[in-house]
C-alpha cells in the first residue's frame, strides 16, 4: 500500500488496479529470451518418475507491483510433478542451499500440491477442468501450500499449449487409482533406502509391542490391555491391527459391532485417568436392532464405569463441537487471503485485513480446538475422570482433540520423536482418512465439501502444536506462556466455574516445562501462523529480521556453548592446554529473511520491500501536485 497514495482522504491518487491479465510485451522480455536459449536447464527426474508432456517458450511471470516481468523456460509435467525449467535458479547463498529441497525444486509443483487451475481467456480468469474447447493464453496454478504460479503461453506453439494444458488438467484432476500414485513407482524404483536406527525413529504402532510399550510408558498397563483381535483386519478395516482397550472388555464385544461402540484407549494420565475414543454405533431405524444396540451399550458402560475405572465423561464431538463442513468452509475462506494473484490485490486487502481474517473464522476455530483440549485436560487432571471422545468414525475430531491434549499434557510428545510417534499413533493408526480428506485420488465432486478436510485439520492442530513444540525445545515457551493473568473465555457454560478455576489457576502458577502446558485462549493470543501462511508473500517478509533472526542467534549461541563444553571436557581429560585448534568458524546467519527457509523465489538481497520504486512512481505524484497547483490557480482567478 506504500507509495500508492492510498490512505483515506488522499485525493484521487489511487493507482489504477491493473487488470488481471498479464500484458507482457515482447520488448520487455527479450533480454531474458537470449539467456534462456543459452542456458538449458535439465529436468531432474526421481527414480521411477516419467516425463509425460512438455512445452517450450513458456513465460513464467513474476508479478510484482503492476510491472510484469517473466522468465522463459520449459514447462513439463511428469507423473509426480509439474516443473518449470528456466534460468531462474541463480546462485544460492550457503545458508539457503543448506535448506534447499532436494526433491522438489523452487519451480516444482507436485501433482498432489495442485489446488486449483485457472486459465486466462481474453483477460478473464476461469477455472479449468475436463475437456477444453479453447486453450487459455495463461495458466494460473494455485497450490495447496499457497504458492501461486502464472505461466504465460502466448509465445508457445499451439500444439504444445494443447498438450501441456490438457496434460496438466488430466493428471491433476482425473480420478486416480491408488496404485497409480507416484510413490508406488518411486518405491519400486528406489529400493535401497538406508536402514535407520530404530532408536532414532518414531514409534510406528504397527506391532503389539509398540502399544504395550506405550501402555507401560504412560502406566496404563494396569487397567488397559493391547489386543490383537484385529490382526489381518479381520474385525474392521478402519481400526489398526493392534490397539488398546480396557482390560475388562471382552474380545467378543470388540467384534460385535466391528469395533464400533467400544472405548479405545488413547493415552493415560499420571493420575490413572485415561483418554478414550469411541466410534458411534451405526444409525438404525429398526426397533429390534436398536434394542440390541442399547443392551450392548449398557453392558459396555457397566464394564468401564466399574472400578478400577474412573467415572467417564462422554464428549460427543459429532454433535457438540465443530462440524467438518465448518472447518472446511473456514479454511477455504481463510486460504483465499493468502492465495495472491498479484501484489496490488494484496495491498487492496490491507484495509480490510482484520475483518477478512475474522470473517473466515479460522482463528476462532483454532481457539475452539485448543479450548476443547483444555476442557478435556481439566476433566482428566482436576476432576479425575476418564474422558471418552465420541465421533461417528472416531477418525477426525477425535484425532485432533486427543493429540492436542497429549501435546499439552505429555512432555514426551513435545520431543521430536515423541511428536512424530504421536502423529503416527493418533492420526495414521487412528485411521484419519488422509486420502479422502486431501482428496489425493481426485474423486468426484460429490465429496466436494469433504475435500481437503484433513488439511485444515492437520493445520489447526499443527499450528498451535508446532508452536508448542518449537518453543519447548528452544526454551522460549516462557515468552508465550504462563504470564498473563487471564480473563475468561466464554460465557455461561456448566463447567465454566471449574474450568475457569483450572485455567486461571494454571496460569497463575509458574509452569513446569516438563509437565502440563496450557495455551492462552484469549482472542488476541491466537495469531496467524505467519511462517505457514505468509511464506510465499514477499510483501510480508522482513529481510534480515523476524523470528528467524532470533532463532539463528540462539542456535549460534547454543553451538558456542556446546563447543565450549567440549573444550572443557577435553581439557579435563587431558589436562593439557589445547593447541590453538582451528575453531570451527561461527555460523554466518547472514541476512536471512523472516520467511526463511521459504520464499526463496523472492530474493532481493538489499532491496527494501517498498513497492514504490523510484522516480517513476513518484513522478505520478508530481503530476498530481502540478494539477493541484493549476487547479488552485484557476480557482483564484
Amino acid at each position, binding site marked *: 500500500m506504500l507509495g500508492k497514495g492510498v490512505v483515506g482522504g*488522499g485525493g484521487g491518487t489511487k493507482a489504477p488496479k491493473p487488470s488481471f491479465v498479464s500484458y507482457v510485451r515482447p520488448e520487455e522480455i527479450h533480454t531474458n529470451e537470449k539467456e534462456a536459449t543459452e542456458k538449458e536447464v535439465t529436468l531432474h527426474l526421481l527414480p521411477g518418475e516419467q516425463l509425460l508432456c512438455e512445452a517450450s517458450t513458456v513465460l513464467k511471470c513474476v508479478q510484482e507491483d503492476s510491472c510484469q516481468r517473466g522468465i522463459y523456460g520449459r514447462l513439463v509435467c511428469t507423473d509426480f510433478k509439474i516443473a518449470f525449467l528456466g534460468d531462474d535458479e541463480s546462485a544460492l547463498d550457503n545458508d539457503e542451499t543448506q535448506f534447499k529441497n532436494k526433491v522438489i525444486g523452487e519451480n516444482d509443483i507436485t501433482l498432489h500440491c495442485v489446488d486449483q487451475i485457472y486459465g486466462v481467456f481474453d483477460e478473464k480468469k476461469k477455472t479449468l477442468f475436463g475437456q477444453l474447447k479453447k486453450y487459455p493464453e495463461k495458466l494460473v496454478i494455485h497450490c495447496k501450500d499457497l504458492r501461486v504460479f502464472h505461466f504465460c503461453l502466448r509465445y508457445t506453439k499451439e500444439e504444445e499449449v494443447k498438450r501441456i494444458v490438457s496434460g496438466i488438467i488430466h493428471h491433476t484432476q482425473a480420478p486416480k487409482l491408488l496404485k497409480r500414485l507416484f510413490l508406488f513407482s518411486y518405491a519400486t524404483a528406489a529400493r535401497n533406502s538406508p536402514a535407520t536406527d530404530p532408536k532414532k525413529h518414531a514409534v510406528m504402532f504397527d506391532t503389539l509391542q509398540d502399544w504395550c510399550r506405550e501402555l507401560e510408558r504412560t502406566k496404563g498397563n494396569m487397567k488397559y490391555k493391547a489386543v490383537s483381535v484385529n490382526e489381518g483386519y479381520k474385525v474392521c478395516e478402519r481400526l489398526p491391527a493392534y490397539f488398546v482397550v480396557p482390560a475388562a472388555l471382552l474380545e467378543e464385544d470388540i467384534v460385535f459391532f466391528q469395533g464400533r461402540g467400544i472405548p479405545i484407549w488413547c493415552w493415560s494420565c499420571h493420575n490413572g485417568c485415561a483418554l478414550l475414543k469411541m466410534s458411534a454405533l451405526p444409525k438404525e431405524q429398526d426397533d429390534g436392532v436398536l434394542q440390541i444396540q442399547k443392551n450392548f451399550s449398557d453392558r459396555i458402560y457397566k464394564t468401564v464405569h466399574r472400578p478400577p475405572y474412573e467415572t467417564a465423561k462422554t464428549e460427543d464431538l459429532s454433535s457438540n463441537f465443530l462440524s467438518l463442513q465448518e472447518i472446511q468452509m473456514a479454511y477455504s475462506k481463510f486460504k483465499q487471503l493468502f492465495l495472491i494473484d498479484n501484489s496490488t490485490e494484496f495491498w487492496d486487502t490491507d484495509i480490510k485485513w482484520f475483518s477478512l*481474517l475474522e470473517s473466515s473464522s479460522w482463528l476462532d476455530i483454532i481457539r475452539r480446538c485448543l479450548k476443547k483440549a483444555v476442557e478435556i485436560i481439566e476433566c482428566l487432571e482436576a476432576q479425575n475422570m476418564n474422558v471418552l471422545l465420541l465421533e461417528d468414525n472416531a477418525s477426525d475430531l477425535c484425532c485432533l482433540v486427543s493429540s492436542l491434549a497429549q501435546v499439552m499434557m505429555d512432555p514426551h510428545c513435545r520431543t521430536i520423536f515423541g511428536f512424530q510417534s504421536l502423529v503416527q499413533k493418533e492420526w495414521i493408526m487412528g485411521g484419519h482418512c488422509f486420502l479422502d480428506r486431501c482428496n489425493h485420488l481426485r474423486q468426484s465432486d460429490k465429496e466436494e465439501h469433504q475435500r481437503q478436510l484433513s488439511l485444515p485439520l492437520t493445520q489447526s492442530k499443527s499450528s498451535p502444536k508446532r508452536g508448542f513444540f518449537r518453543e519447548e525445545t528452544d526454551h522460549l515457551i516462557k515468552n508465550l506462556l504462563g504470564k498473563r493473568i487471564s480473563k475468561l473465555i466464554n460465557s455461561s457454560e456448566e463447567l465454566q466455574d471449574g474450568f475457569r478455576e483450572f485455567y486461571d489457576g494454571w496460569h497463575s502458577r509458574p509452569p513446569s516445562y516438563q509437565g502440563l502446558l496450557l495455551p492462552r485462549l484469549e*482472542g488476541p493470543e491466537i495469531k496467524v501462523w505467519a511462517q505457514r501462511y505468509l511464506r510465499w*508473500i514477499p510483501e510480508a517478509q522482513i529481510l534480515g*529480521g523476524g523470528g528467524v533472526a532470533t532463532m539463528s542467534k540462539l542456535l549460534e549461541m547454543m553451538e558456542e556453548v556446546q563447543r565450549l563444553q567440549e573444550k572443557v571436557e577435553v581439557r579435563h581429560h587431558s589436562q593439557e592446554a589445547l593447541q590453538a585448534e582451528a575453531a570451527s568458524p561461527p555460523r554466518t546467519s547472514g541476512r536471512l529473511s523472516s520467511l526463511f527457509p521459504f520464499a526463496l523465489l523472492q530474493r532481493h538481497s538489499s532491496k527494501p520491500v*517498498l513497492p514504490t520504486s523510484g522516480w517513476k512512481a513518484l513522478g505520478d505524484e508530481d503530476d498530481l501536485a502540478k494539477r493541484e497547483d493549476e487547479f488552485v490557480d484557476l480557482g483564484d482567478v
Partner: protein
Amino acid sequence: MEFAELIRTGQAQAELLRGPEEPPLRGTLCITGHHLMLSPGPQATPDLWLLLLRNVDSIEKRVAGDSGTITLRCKDLRVLQLDIEGVEATLDIARSIEALSSLESVITSFPFFYRPKGLRLGDAWHFHPPECYYKRVARETNAWRLSEANEDFSLCPSYPRAVIVPRAVDDSALARSARFRQGGRFPVLSYYHAPSGTVLLRAGQPLTGPQKRRCSEDEDLLRAVLAGARPGARGFIVDTRSPQAAKQARMTGGGTEAKAAYPGWKRLHRPLETGRPLQESFVRLVEACGDLEQSMDRWLNRLESCRWLSHVKETLSTACLAAQSMEQEGACVLVHGAEGTDSTLLITSLAQLILDPLSRTMAGFQELIEREWIQAGHPFQLRCAHSAFSHARPKHEAPTFLLFLDCVWQLGRQFPLSLEFGEGMLLALFDHAYASPFGTFLCNNEKERCLCEVRTRTHSLWSGLSQPKEQRKLRNPLYVPNPLAIWPSAEPQSLRLWQGDPPPPPWRSSRLCSASLPVLFLLRPVSARDPST
C-alpha cells in the same frame, strides 16, 4: 499554594485488591502532596508507593454500607482498586486524589521535589543534542553550520537555542524564513545520512495563505540544501497531510510549497492523522483490550475498527518512504505537516531508526528522543495531559509519542537483534512521558523548560535510566550491531498489537507495587483484571 489544603483526609484504612490469586493487601492508605501510599503495618513489608498522583487518569468512587471503593485508572494503563473503610473517608480520599492529580502547575510537580540518592542535580543534562549532533555532521560535510539565531527563542519558541542550518544561509535569512513558517519553524537539519550524502529536514508548514505568498529566503534555504548535498541533487517534501487538507490550510493562512517556487523539490502527500482522531483511536483500543470478555469473538473486528494498527502502518510506511528516498533515491527530504511538532517528528525520528545504526544503540536512541522529540518541541505537556481513561474531552491530547514507541516496538519485533534497547526501554519512556519523577518530559518546549529552570531543578530521566540496575531491564540481550538500514514490512499481516511486557509473574507479585514504581506493561487490560468487573 499548599498541598495540605487539597488533602481532605490524609489517611484511611484500606485494602488493595490484587487479582484473584492474591489476597488483598490491608493497610493504612496515605495521601501526600504527590503520592498515594499504602502502609501495611509495622510487621509487614515496607510501605508501598502505589502511584504518583499525577499518574491518575480517572477516578471512580462507589459507596455501599459503611465502606467505599475507589478505582483508579492510571495514565500508564494500570488499574488499581482500593476498598476503603468509612463512607466519608472514601469520598474525602477520592476528592483529594481528584484535586491533587489535576494540578497543572509545572513547578509544583513532583520532579521539582524528587531528590533520589545517588543522583546529582544537573547530571545527564549534558546532552546538548544540537551541538553534539552538529559535531557529527561537521565531521562528514562542510555544508552545514550551527546557528544560534534562536538564542533567545525569538525566531521560534519551540526550537532549541541552537539549530543546524545550511552554511550558505545567514541568520537574517533564517529570521525571514521563520516568519514564513508556522510557529517560526523554519527548515532545520534533522539527520545527515552519510552513505548517500543526503539530509533529512523538518519544518512547519509554509504560510502561503490564500494569496499564495512566497518567501525568497525560505526558497533559498531549500535551494542551498540541495546545492550542499551535491550538484543536481533532488529533494522530496513529505507533507503529512492529504493534498486537500494542505490546500484547505491556505484558507487559514497555511499551505504547502508551490512547485514552481522550489525547483528540484517534489511534494509527496502522506496523510497521517494527529490530534483528536489519534487520541480517540487510542481510547477505543484500550477499551477493546479491557473488554476482552465481551469481545472475544469479535476481537479482530474491534481491533480493526479502533484503527490503531492502521495508524502504525501508515506511520511506518511514510517513514519508510522518507528513508527510501534518502537511501535508494539519493534525495534530500523535508518533512512537515501543519505545525511540524507531531507527525513530522514521528517520521523524522523513525526514518533515522531505519537508516542510522547509531540511533539504534542505547545512547543513540536516548539522544534521538532528546533531539527529535524533546528539543524539537513536541508539546509533551499538552499531548500527555490525559491518557486513555480520562473522561475529559481531548483538547490537545494525542498519543503521538506512544505511536512512535509502538512503531519502534514493531521495528524491534521485526528485527529482534538490531536494537540495543528492549521493550523495557519503550515502556519506561511511555510511563515517564505521562507521569514521571524526572523532569525530562516536563513542559512543551525548550523555552518553557528554561523559564521553569527544569534543567537545574529537576533530575534527568537519562541519568535515572543509566543506573546499572535499570540498565539490565532496558537492554536487548540479543543485540548485534547491524550496520545496514532495517526495512520493516508495514503490511498489516506483519504488524502486531503491542500487548506490552508481561507483568511480573504473580507468584512473585510482591513486586506488584514496589516502591520504585516499576515499569508496568502497556496494554495491561488483557491482564489488568480490572477488579470491578
